[in-house]
């Protein structure tokens, strides 16, 4: 199966770089899966799991919180605001994030912002459930 170049860049370090089969992204307009030869797209990301398929049956999961993805036919670059590989993730980290998000939720009066944070919290809860499997 064809592969393409995938780079996951966090603010402090490069988290992943290599050839992959497919990557599933939590795009802000909905989840999408990128395969080789994808049309060029620039999209923002929401909080969620990024699923990397290196080869059939082999892959990685990374929790990203906001960022961008630049997609073209031969490469995919994800610029994540915060990214934590699943191996480094513990329920405690997610709990701390949920608590921080809830604080933000209470602090803001802006309706749109509240909606956005609500979505984040839901995504984090989902990630936590996924983690316990």
């Amino acid at each position, binding site marked *: 199966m064809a592969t393409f170049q995938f*780079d996951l*860049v*966090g*603010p*402090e*370090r*490069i988290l992943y770089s290599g050839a992959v089969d497919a990557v599933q992204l939590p*795009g*802000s*307009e909905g989840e999408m899966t990128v395969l080789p030869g994808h*049309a*060029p*797209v*620039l*999209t*923002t990301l929401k909080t969620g799991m990024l699923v990397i398929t290196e080869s059939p049956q082999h892959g990685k999961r990374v929790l990203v919180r906001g960022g*961008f993805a*630049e997609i*073209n036919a031969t490469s995919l*670059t994800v*610029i994540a*605001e*915060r990214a934590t590989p699943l191996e480094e993730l513990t329920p405690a980290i997610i709990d701390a994030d949920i608590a921080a998000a809830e604080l933000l939720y209470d602090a803001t009066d802006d309706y749109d912002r509240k909606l956005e944070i609500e979505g984040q919290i839901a995504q984090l809860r989902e990630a936590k459930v996924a983690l316990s499997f």
Partner: protein
Amino acid sequence: MASLKDLRNRITSVKATQKITKAMQMVAAAKLRRAQMAAESARPYAERMAQVLGNLAANLTPGAETPRLLSGTGQDHTHLLVVCTAERGLCGAFNSSISRLARDHARRLMAQGKTVKIICVGKKGYDVLRREFRDQIVELIELRGVRQLGFENAEGIARNLLGRYDAGEFDIATLFYSRFRSVIAQIPTAQQIIPAEIAPTEAASGASADAVYEYEPGEGEILAALLPRNLTVQILRALLENAASEQGARMGAMDSATRNAGEMIKKQTLIYNRTRQAMITKELIEIISGAEAL
């Protein structure tokens, strides 16, 4: 003339100082390695970010409304200087050279009749600038308790700046920090961050620049979301470069201090030995002449 005991005391005290400066140099060297690594591993992110932003700005539909972070307010009355320095001293000319650059900049702007506001990040720059620009300094941000500079620190500062920008407190923001060239060369740098300066990247990205991107959500929304993040990244990079520069400068300063102390010890030891010999000779002469007199 100083007595032998005085000389001995002086030598011991210089030796103690030398030990301290030597230790500080070694600590700085260890910290430098870490800071340098952090600065280097943050570079790809900043570069990719600049690339995406460059593509986006270059392909922006003409006539579309550009965010104020990119286009500016259309005025240049009020300038905000963000001066990043260290929290601690004893690092050579590091703090003073950044402060001097900022001060010259501020003086020039004030001579042109512009309003200047200053935000200090780090206490040392504040101490220097406070003397001349007491009324211009609007805030001091201390990063004293921070062990490892992270995205959160930069984000806090960026949010602060954005809040002020949206409130119309300034038109142009410039960031002052020291770029880390090598252990012995740190270059004080001024960089305009608001409105964002975007370097053309057409040549660098080659084919990807020609590709027509689909934007999800719209072009404008992405740009609006990307610009504040770019600001954060620029600040983070400045902070990390600054941290590496600070340790480099401290290492250099402590190295020369250690060397100076070594020279001083050598000189003092020479004086001490001469004095000791002179005293022995004097005592001998006294004994001999006393014996002859009998």
